[in-house]
C-alpha cells in the first residue's frame, strides 16, 4: 500500500540533501567546535556557516542566532529567560489562549514562581486582536509572546500590527515561529520582533535542533547553564551535525520561498478543502479561510471522534492528526479548538491534514476519494444521527 503523509505540522521528513550535508560531521569531522585543534576548528566553521544561513532566512544578524535543541527549548528560553532577567522591572506576561504547550506550560511554570500571565482570547478564526494586546499591557508587563501561526488550525496572526502596540509600550516581543519558518517569508525587522523560535524538524531539517533569534541587546537569563558555548547564552557541546542540518534546511527553504514554491501547496490545500467540504455533510473548516499556513487544512466532522478517523485513514495509508483528547494524551479536546468557540463534542471530531512540499495532486484526489466512505462508516457507529440530540 502506498503511504501518504499529510502530517507535516507534526514533523517533516529530513530532506535527503540535509542528511547529506550532516553526514561528514558524524564520523569524519567530529571535533568539538570549542577545541583549538584542526578537528575542532573545522567543526567550528561548519557551525558558523549554518548560523549565517539561518540568520539570512529570517533577515537577522548571525550573532543574534542561538542554537537550541528545538522549538520547545527556544520557547522556554525566551519566556523564562526574559521573565528572570527583567523581574525587577515587572512580573506581567501576555500571551494567548491558543499557544503551543511549550509556551503555555512555560507561562504556567512562571505563574508558580509568582509571575502574572494574561491569556488573550481569539475570535472564531483564531485571530488575536492587537487592540486586546494593547489593553492588556500594564506598566508591569515585561513580555508579550504570541505565536506566528497556529500549529493546529493554521491561522497566521497579525504580528506586525501586534508589534506596533508592544514596541510602543517598550515591552519585549517574542513570537513562536515554529510553524512558519521555512514556510512563509519572514523578516524579523519587518515583523518587529525581539525574539523568534524555530525548530528544524518542521521544515525538513533534523529533529532535536532549533534556534532562538535574540535581538542584540535583549536582556535574558540562560535556561541551560554551563560552558561558554553560543557566546555564553546556551551551554552544552554543540550538536554540530544537527546545526549543519538546520543550516542546510534553511538554505533549501530560502530557495523554495524565492521560487514561490509554497504556491503549489496552497493550491493543493484549497483543492483538498473544497473537495472535502463539497462531498461531506456536517463538516466545517477550522481556522481562517485565507490567513492560514500554506499546508494546513483542518476540519471538524460532527458526530464522530478524531482518533477513529486517524485509525481509519491510517488503514488506508494516510497519515493525519486530530485535536481530539485521545490523540494528545490529555482528557480534554484541544485547547485551541475550544478557544475558537467549538463545543467539546465537536472539537473531538477534528481532523488535521497538513501538506508538505512533496505531496501530489494524486494524493489529494485519493484522500478526497476515500474520506467520505470513512466518515460514513464511523457515523454509522455513532449514537448521534444528524444532530446532537440526547447529548446531556
Amino acid at each position, binding site marked *: 500500500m502506498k503511504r501518504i503523509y499529510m502530517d507535516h505540522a507534526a514533523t517533516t521528513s529530513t530532506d535527503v540533501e540535509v542528511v547529506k550535508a550532516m553526514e561528514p560531521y558524524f564520523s569524519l569531522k567530529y571535533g568539538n567546535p570549542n577545541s583549538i585543534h584542526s578537528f575542532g576548528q573545522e567543526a567550528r566553521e561548519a557551525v558558523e556557516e549554518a548560523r549565517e544561513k539561518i540568520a539570512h532566512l529570517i533577515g537577522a544578524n548571525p550573532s543574534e542566532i542561538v542554537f537550541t535543541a528545538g522549538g520547545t527549548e527556544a520557547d522556554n528560553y525566551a519566556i523564562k529567560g526574559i521573565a528572570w532577567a527583567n523581574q525587577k522591572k515587572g512580573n506581567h506576561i501576555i500571551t494567548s489562549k491558543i499557544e503551543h504547550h511549550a509556551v503555555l506550560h512555560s507561562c504556567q511554570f512562571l505563574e508558580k514562581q509568582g509571575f502574572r500571565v494574561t491569556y488573550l482570547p481569539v475570535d472564531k478564526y483564531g485571530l488575536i486582536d492587537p487592540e486586546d494586546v494593547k489593553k492588556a499591557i500594564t506598566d508591569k508587563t515585561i513580555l508579550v509572546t504570541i505565536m506566528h501561526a497556529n500549529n493546529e488550525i493554521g491561522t497566521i496572526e497579525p504580528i506586525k500590527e501586534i508589534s506596533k502596540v508592544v514596541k510602543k509600550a517598550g515591552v519585549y516581543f517574542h513570537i513562536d515561529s515554529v510553524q512558519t519558518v521555512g514556510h512563509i517569508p519572514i523578516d524579523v525587522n519587518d515583523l518587529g520582533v525581539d525574539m523568534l523560535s524555530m525548530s528544524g524538524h518542521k521544515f525538513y531539517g533534523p529533529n532535536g535542533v532549533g534556534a532562538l533569534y535574540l535581538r542584540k541587546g535583549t536582556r535574558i537569563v540562560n535556561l541551560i547553564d554551563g560552558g561558554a558555548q553560543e557566546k555564553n547564552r546556551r551551554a552544552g557541546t554543540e550538536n554540530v551535525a544537527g546545526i549543519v542540518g538546520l543550516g542546510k534546511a534553511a538554505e533549501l527553504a530560502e530557495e523554495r520561498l524565492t521560487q514561490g514554491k509554497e504556491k503549489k501547496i496552497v493550491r493543493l490545500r484549497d483543492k483538498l478543502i473544497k473537495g472535502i467540504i463539497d462531498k461531506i455533510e456536517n463538516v466545517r473548516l477550522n481556522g481562517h479561510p485565507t490567513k492560514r499556513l500554506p499546508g494546513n487544512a483542518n476540519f471538524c466532522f460532527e458526530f464522530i*471522534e*478524531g482518533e477513529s478517523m486517524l485509525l481509519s485513514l491510517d488503514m488506508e495509508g494516510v497519515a493525519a492528526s486530530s485535536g481530539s483528547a485521545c490523540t494528545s494524551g490529555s*482528557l480534554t479536546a484541544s485547547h485551541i479548538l475550544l478557544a475558537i468557540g467549538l463545543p*467539546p463534542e465537536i472539537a473531538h471530531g477534528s481532523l488535521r491534514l497538513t501538506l508538505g512540499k512533496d505531496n501530489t495532486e494524486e494524493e489529494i484526489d485519493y484522500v478526497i476519494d476515500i474520506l467520505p466512505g470513512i466518515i460514513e462508516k464511523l457515523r454509522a457507529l455513532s449514537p448521534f444521527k444528524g444532530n446532537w440530540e440526547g447529548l446531556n
Partner: protein
Amino acid sequence: MGMYSDKVMEHFKNPHNVGEIKDADGIGEVGNPICGDIMKIYIKVKDGKIIDCKFKTFGCGAAIATSSMITEMVKGKGIDEALKISNKAVAEALGGLPPIKMHCSNLAADGLSKAIEDYKQKSKKK
C-alpha cells in the same frame, strides 16, 4: 507495530453487533462528550439470559473495540454472570490496551452494567 493490539484493530475494522435494538429490554449509556467518548449498549434478555446485545459508540478506537468486544462476550450469558465482566476483563480479551486508554475509553463493561440495571428497573415496574 501500532499503538493497539491486532485484536483491537480487528474489532475496530469490523465491529460486531453495531446498531440499536428497537425493543431493547435494557439500555446503558456511559461516557462523557468532554472526554470524547459516549457508548450506548442495548440488551435483549430472555429467561435471565442476554440473548442479544448491540452498541452505538462515539469515541476512539479503544472505545469502539471494547464496545464491540463486550457485545460478543455477553451473548448467551446470564445477567448475573454478565455483571461480573469488568472493564479490565474486556481489555484483556482484546489483548490489552495502551496504558493511557485503560481509564478513559475502557467503559464498555460499565455500559453493560447500566443496561442490566436498566433492565432490572424495568422488570420491577412490570
